[in-house]
């Protein structure tokens, strides 16, 4: 269990990550706010509380690693990396702009703190497998985390990778599915249903945990269960809200890949600022 002080800090950091998401996407006038907002809490918990990594450890072979398999949600990753001091927060406003190192999708060669380039769906989980396998070969005890989209499960490679991780007993791998139920063309169950997600991964030999994506204690508990699970990889299915934290973006598929205009941006920031005040008052 997280104590109240820690919980407050996490909530405030996640709120700031959400503001970075909106600021970056608004400045770029393009990008993917919906899915970035739905994973803001989990990336905050990973980088603030779970992962053994820091800007100083960026080249350390023993650090924990993270792969954003749903690479289009880079604004959330960049948001938490900026919060953790990997690069200046002001640079978020250069997202997707010519000459900026903050590419539209994660670029490990140019962006401090990015462990793997990603963006083409289905490939990140395989790369995470490779990292986990390297850890096994070298007998290092780092862990590898990766987040997939629920729509991403429609990519066949995800299931090649699922087979592989279980076959090689990659218990140092903890994957998440951001189960917000929406993809670009609409409801995942209408576009091409990957359901039931839990039974599929169980059948592939994974330890499966279903968890509220916006409850830090539940998330930490699930991640700790994954750490204790030996002999197989863990999939944590995050029951999330697409667009979480901005009322007019919540559960609306069209916010998958469109940027807010000036008015919408100001309204969204005001909403998160009000939430920040409430968190501070509650603390």
């Amino acid at each position, binding site marked *: 269990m997280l104590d109240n002080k820690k919980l407050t800090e996490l909530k405030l950091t996640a709120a700031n990550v959400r503001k970075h998401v909106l600021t970056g996407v608004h400045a770029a006038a393009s990008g993917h706010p919906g899915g970035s907002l739905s994973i803001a809490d989990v990336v905050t918990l990973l980088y603030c509380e779970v992962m053994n990594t820091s800007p100083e450890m960026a080249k350390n*072979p023993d650090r924990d690693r993270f792969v954003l398999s749903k690479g289009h949600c880079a604004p959330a990753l960049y948001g938490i990396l900026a919060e953790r001091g990997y690069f200046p927060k002001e640079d978020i406003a250069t997202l997707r702009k010519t000459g900026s190192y903050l590419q539209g999708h994660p670029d490990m060669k140019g962006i401090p703190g990015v462990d793997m380039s990603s963006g083409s769906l289905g490939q990140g989980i*395989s790369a995470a*497998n*490779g*990292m986990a396998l390297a850890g096994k070969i070298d007998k290092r005890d780092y862990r590898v985390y990766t987040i997939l989209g629920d729509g991403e499960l429609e990519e066949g490679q995800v299931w090649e*990778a699922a087979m592989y991780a279980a076959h090689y007993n990659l218990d140092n791998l903890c994957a998440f599915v951001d189960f917000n139920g929406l993809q670009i063309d609409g409801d995942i169950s209408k576009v091409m249903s990957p359901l039931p997600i839990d039974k599929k991964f169980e059948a592939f030999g994974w330890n499966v945990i279903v968890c509220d994506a916006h409850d830090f204690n539940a998330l930490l508990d699930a991640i700790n269960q994954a750490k204790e699970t030996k002999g197989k990889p863990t999939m944590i299915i995050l029951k999330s809200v697409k667009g979480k934290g901005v009322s007019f973006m919540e559960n609306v598929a069209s916010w998958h890949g469109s940027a807010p205009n000036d008015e919408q941006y100001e309204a969204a920031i005001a909403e998160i600022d009000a939430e920040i005040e409430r968190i501070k008052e509650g603390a």
Partner: protein
Amino acid sequence: MAKSATREAYGLALAEFGEKYDIIVLDADLSKSTKTDTFLKKFPERFFNTGIAEGNMMSTAAGLASCGKIVFASSFAMFAAGRAFEQIRNGICYPKLNVKIGATHAGISVGEDGATHQCLEDIGIMRTIPNMVIINPADKAESILAVEAAIKHDGPVYLRFGRLAVPEIFDRDTYKFEIGKGVELIEGNDVTIIATGLLVPEAMEASEKLKAEGISARVINMATIKPIDREIIEKAAKETGAIVTAEEHNVIGGLGSAVAEVLCELAPVPMLRIGTQDVFGQSGKPAELLEIYGLTADNIVKKAKEAIKLKK
């Protein structure tokens, strides 16, 4: 002259260099054909079968390489360069990771398996990806030397090997292999034959035949197709005035295209391309197929004479 398939040399090289270098080998259920099983027998703890899942294999290789490993990922050229193109492009070449793709069974000489397995497009596909190095060795010695050069090279490399036994034309102890350098095998002044892979011994034979007719044909072995040796091509064009390229690949996108690009920019001279003429292959015995598609010394002789006639 002794003969052996370059895929055999690939397996031998992996097993040999596994002693000296900390390499990891991945294969997609074809280890007995790609010959990575030679490595597997010696270093089972560093061999990982990915099953019949080439896309996953390439992305897994990227993850391993991001943790400092030198990774060889093997399959048939068709499924490596073909099926896994995008994983190679986005996951390996974009971040310039240390993955070496060992693609065997390239070209028409795959034989009886037919068109679906005769990859004649891989050089073209791989050549358009930034950061990629492409090596198409001609024989056993060159294959072994190319594998070591690939290990020492920091970044992705596409190594192209064949199924068919081909003449062992080089001596490993004296032959110098360097990535990006063509090698002049036979001197000549009337025309230059630039060949790669199993067309190299054919080009040498063609040069001998031309010599008997009083024609002096230079032969260059172009094992590295990317980065292409611009200097040796420019020199050959200026000194001999006509070029013939010979490769076991579609004339679109492969060695012929790479040489033509250099000639256009640096030294335009008449040029003819030997390769498959933008057609799919078919089942048959390798030697028969090489004959049907004109991948022979005799066809090189014919094209060399035509190229000379095109000179002003």
